């Protein structure tokens, strides 16, 4: 078979290599490649070919440099350019560093945004796929669900022919598995039940097994490579694992019918294990046939005709009464949400294991990226301009010898290109490392950022823009130089217009710097408020442990309490604040009131210790008297009473109905944050029920690994099914602020970066200004100026600029931050000090940065500066 050298390398060679050399070079390279491919592997031969092309990229072989005079000038400029860089090491380092930070930031942000906005777009029918979402209207609020009743998919399939495909999933849920013998156990949080249509709608990347038949039998199981490796080690990719049996929850044998690649990071559909939906239906006959209430079913439809969307939604609105009871039919409406909007729409929340990233955050991030880049470019222009005026004499000599304007411009372009080129190489390297770090730190959200070729293209584009902008101004200035004036030393360095541009660039930098610092302060205060805010309950050193067998609870509790490291134990459905997207919902109303007047409430189950355990304060009434299988006592929160218009005292002894049954209110608890602080406190009912007590809360005296291990031992004594799993309640609550924490960290990092670039620019500028004004300083000192006056003389100018920047930044910051805070129900008050500290920090940082140069200038001996003329 004839082998072909790699196309791209060849294209590159043909692009740069001069025509008359091409026969020889390309011919030799191809011949070598052909010979090598017979002795070493094709891959290696291609690599060697690539290396040869790169090493052939020599000045001598370049197309553009064919004419000798061009080549000589090019070499000359290159030499002068690199000498300039080496001669002014500080200047070059500052310039490269500033620009590198800017370009790297911009690139990382760009890659992140591209990743976040490309969720699930890799499925073959991504553009035609919709998720069915449900809006439920209550008298006092509307709830938005990303899940729907299970039978919906089947009903749509029967009654609507417009849909090309409809698929139903349940979960992802947590299940535990065992294989071979009962000792090999593992647990998965992402067990997804899917019907046979699922692989037709979504791309699963099959490694083993047949996509068409894998989900046909009820007792099948499809595992991801990760699970396969966990179970079978080295044999994970071997076809022999097909047909092996995995036990679900220790009782249901499932046969492996397929292995798929791990769910990609940029997908909202999390799965580790896929089990046929039919299996779920047979094991959960009641919910899977029930239209009322909300269950964890997700329905996806494929609608090829995009225009039909509205029409279908209207028809579904009229059709649903066929299945829903009258009450639900009034409340519930079904809508179609495009698959590609799922990730950036926060209204419906995220499905378990996933997360949403609002468009607003991405937009804000894009602005941050653009501004950081602009600041870096402004910096670059400032420094290059400053430098170019200092080289006026060189320009004068060049002009006298006969250099044209275009020659000069070419020289500056080349020098800037050299700078930018170094910057790009460094940026790409840093970005690569940074992305790996980011992926590592954010592995909880399965972040998988990667540098792609298109990103390199973007960097080159950014570089080109920087070169053009950085060259434009010096080129214009230099063109206007009169060589004779320069030589007679009459040049007024930095004409007025130049200083205005430079000043406005500096003001821009300082405004940005203050804006970011003010932003970081305010976001930080809000985060502090989140983490230390009065939640209405305490969770210090509390872990939650899943308890699978109800009959063993007391035994477990007694063993726990014998341990001196355990202070208190309580059982319940969840901690006071709903975490991990888990809350039991119900509707409450007065007994005898019709069902459709019910209002949404959260239902919590706790044992007799629950209130005391979490320090929840009763404001009237008493605690439960006992836990029962038929609950008969309620403790409600103040918010619920507000909906009913009762006072805490008159509520005691009243009867209240919820979906699950009727009971007497025995106590009223002070409002606590049963939802994270982004959301309002909602009505909440606590029940003395024995069902749903599937978490044990353990308050530890001290948090040490040994204590956790001994708890695990105790757990294993009491429970034989499932797997020991614990979580600190503090951590689960902190997870609710994941996006806020991330934006706070982002803000902090970005403001440091902006400040850093600003400082670098200021430092470079001060170096330049002090060296230009050495003589003036000398004269001032001779006439009696003190060192302090000299420092003030230099600082005065940029202090004024900072003041102007402050006037610009404050209102912008105020408007933006108020907009941001509007998203939170519980928020801090904006105070004047937050804004002033932004200005003061900028001023201090600027003073320190410029201090190095000004103090040096002020301390210099005037004799030295005035002696030489």
């Amino acid at each position, binding site marked *: 078979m004839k082998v072909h050298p790699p196309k791209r390398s060849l294209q590159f060679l043909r692009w740069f290599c001069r025509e008359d050399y091409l*026969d*020889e*070079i390309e*011919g030799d*390279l*191809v*011949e*070598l490649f052909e*010979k090598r491919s017979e002795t070493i592997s094709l891959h290696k031969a291609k690599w060697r070919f690539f290396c040869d092309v790169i090493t*052939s990229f020599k000045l001598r072989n370049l197309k553009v440099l064919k004419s000798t005079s061009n080549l000589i000038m090019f070499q000359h400029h290159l030499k002068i350019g690199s000498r300039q860089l080496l001669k002014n090491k500080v200047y070059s380092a500052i310039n490269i560093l500033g620009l590198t930070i800017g370009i790297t930031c911009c690139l990382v942000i760009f890659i992140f945004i591209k990743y976040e906005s490309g969720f699930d777009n890799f499925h073959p029918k991504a553009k035609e796929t919709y998720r069915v979402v449900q809006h439920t209207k209550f008298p006092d609020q509307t709830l938005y669900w990303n899940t729907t009743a299970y039978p919906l998919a089947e009903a749509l399939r029967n009654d609507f022919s417009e849909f090309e495909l409809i698929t139903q999933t349940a979960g992802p849920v947590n299940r535990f598995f065992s294989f071979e013998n009962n000792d090999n156990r593992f647990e998965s949080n992402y067990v997804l039940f899917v019907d046979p249509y699922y692989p037709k709608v979504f791309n699963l990347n099959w490694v083993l097994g047949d996509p068409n038949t894998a989900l046909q039998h009820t007792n099948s199981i499809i595992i991801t490579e990760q699970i396969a490796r966990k179970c079978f080690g080295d044999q994970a990719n071997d076809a022999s694992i097909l047909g092996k049996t995995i036990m679900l929850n220790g009782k249901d044998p499932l046969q492996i019918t397929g292995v798929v690649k791990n769910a990609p990071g940029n997908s909202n559909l999390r799965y580790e294990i896929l089990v046929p939906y039919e299996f779920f239906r047979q094991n959960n006959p009641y919910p899977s046939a029930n239209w009322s209430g909300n269950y964890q079913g997700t329905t996806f439809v494929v609608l090829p005709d995009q225009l039909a969307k509205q029409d279908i939604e209207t028809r579904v609105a009229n059709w649903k009464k066929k299945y829903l009871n009258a009450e639900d039919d009034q409340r519930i409406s079904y809508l179609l949400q495009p698959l590609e909007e799922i990730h950036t729409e926060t209204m419906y929340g995220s499905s378990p294991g996933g997360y949403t990233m609002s468009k607003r955050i991405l937009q804000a991030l894009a602005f941050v990226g653009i501004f950081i880049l602009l600041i870096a470019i402004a910096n670059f222009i400032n420094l290059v301009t400053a430098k170019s005026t200092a080289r006026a004499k060189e320009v004068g000599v060049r002009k006298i010898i006969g250099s044209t304007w275009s020659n000069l411009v070419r020289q500056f372009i080349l020098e800037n290109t050299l700078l930018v080129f170094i910057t790009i190489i460094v940026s790409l390297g840093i970005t690569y490392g940074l992305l790996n770090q980011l992926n590592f730190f954010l592995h909880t959200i399965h972040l998988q950022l990667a540098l792609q070729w298109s990103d390199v293209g973007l960097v080159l584009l950014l570089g080109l823009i920087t070169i053009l902008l950085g060259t434009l101004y010096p080129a214009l200035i230099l063109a206007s130089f009169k060589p004779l004036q320069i030589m007679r030393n009459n040049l007024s360095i930095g004409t007025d217009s130049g200083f205005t541009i430079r000043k406005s660039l500096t003001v821009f930098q300082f405004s940005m710097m203050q804006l970011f610092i003010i932003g970081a302060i305010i976001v930080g205060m809000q985060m502090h408020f989140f983490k230390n805010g009065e939640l209405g309950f305490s969770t210090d050193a509390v872990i939650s442990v899943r308890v699978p067998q109800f009959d063993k609870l007391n035994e477990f509790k007694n063993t726990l309490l014998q341990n001196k490291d355990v202070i208190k134990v309580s059982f319940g459905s969840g901690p006071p604040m709903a975490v991990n997207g888990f809350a039991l919902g119900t509707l409450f109303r007065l007994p005898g009131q019709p069902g459709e007047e019910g209002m949404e409430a959260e239902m919590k189950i706790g044992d007799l210790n629950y209130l005391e355990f979490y320090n929840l304060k009763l404001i009237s009434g008493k605690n439960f008297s006992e836990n029962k299988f038929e609950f008969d006592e309620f403790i409600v929160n103040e918010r619920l009473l507000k909906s009913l218009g009762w006072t805490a005292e008159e509520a005691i002894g009243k009867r209240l109905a919820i979906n699950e049954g009727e009971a007497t209110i025995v106590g009223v608890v002070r409002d606590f944050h049963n939802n994270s602080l982004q959301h309002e406190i909602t009505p909440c009912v606590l029940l003395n029920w024995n069902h749903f007590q599937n978490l044990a809360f353990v308050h530890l005296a001290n948090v040490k690994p040994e204590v956790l291990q001994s708890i695990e031992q105790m757990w294993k004594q009491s429970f034989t099914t499932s797997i020991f799993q614990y979580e600190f309640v503090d951590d689960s609550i902190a997870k609710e602020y994941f996006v806020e924490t991330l934006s706070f960290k982002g803000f902090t990092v970005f403001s440091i970066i902006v400040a850093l670039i600003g400082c670098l620019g200021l430092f470079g500028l001060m170096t330049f200004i002090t060296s230009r004004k050495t003589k003036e300083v000398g004269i001032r000192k001779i006439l009696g100026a003190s060192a302090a006056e000299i420092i003030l003389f230099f600082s005065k100018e940029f202090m004024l600029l900072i003041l102007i920047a402050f006037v610009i930044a404050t209102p912008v910051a105020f408007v933006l931050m108020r907009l941001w805070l509007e998203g939170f129900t519980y928020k801090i008050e904006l105070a004047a000090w937050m804004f002033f500290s932004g200005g003061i920090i900028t001023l201090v940082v600027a003073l320190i940065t410029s201090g190095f140069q000004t103090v040096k200038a002020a301390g210099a001996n005037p004799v030295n500066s005035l002696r030489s003329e």
Partner: protein
Amino acid sequence: MTQHSLGEFEELVLLMVAALHDEAYGVVILEGLEEKLKKKVNISAVHVALKRIEDKGFVKSRMGGITEDRGGRRKKFYVITALGKRMLDAQYDLRNSIYKQIPKISFG
């Protein structure tokens, strides 16, 4: 015009061109050098050396015919010139004469 100098690698390439007489082009020169030197040589280094000694007038070149191989590219054959041969002779003589001055006594 001053007399051109000849770098070490350029000299090796020139020797190889002379040795391969009329059959010398990039790949065979490379292979010859690799065989004699017992180490990897970079093709682009050979190309540059060939260009340099051609500029200096030690070799002259002609293009071969088009064949199926090499992606349809022609070979560029190099032949040593009289000047090149004189240069090699001079180098050889120079080295030889200095070599002969090594006192035998030094190495017992």
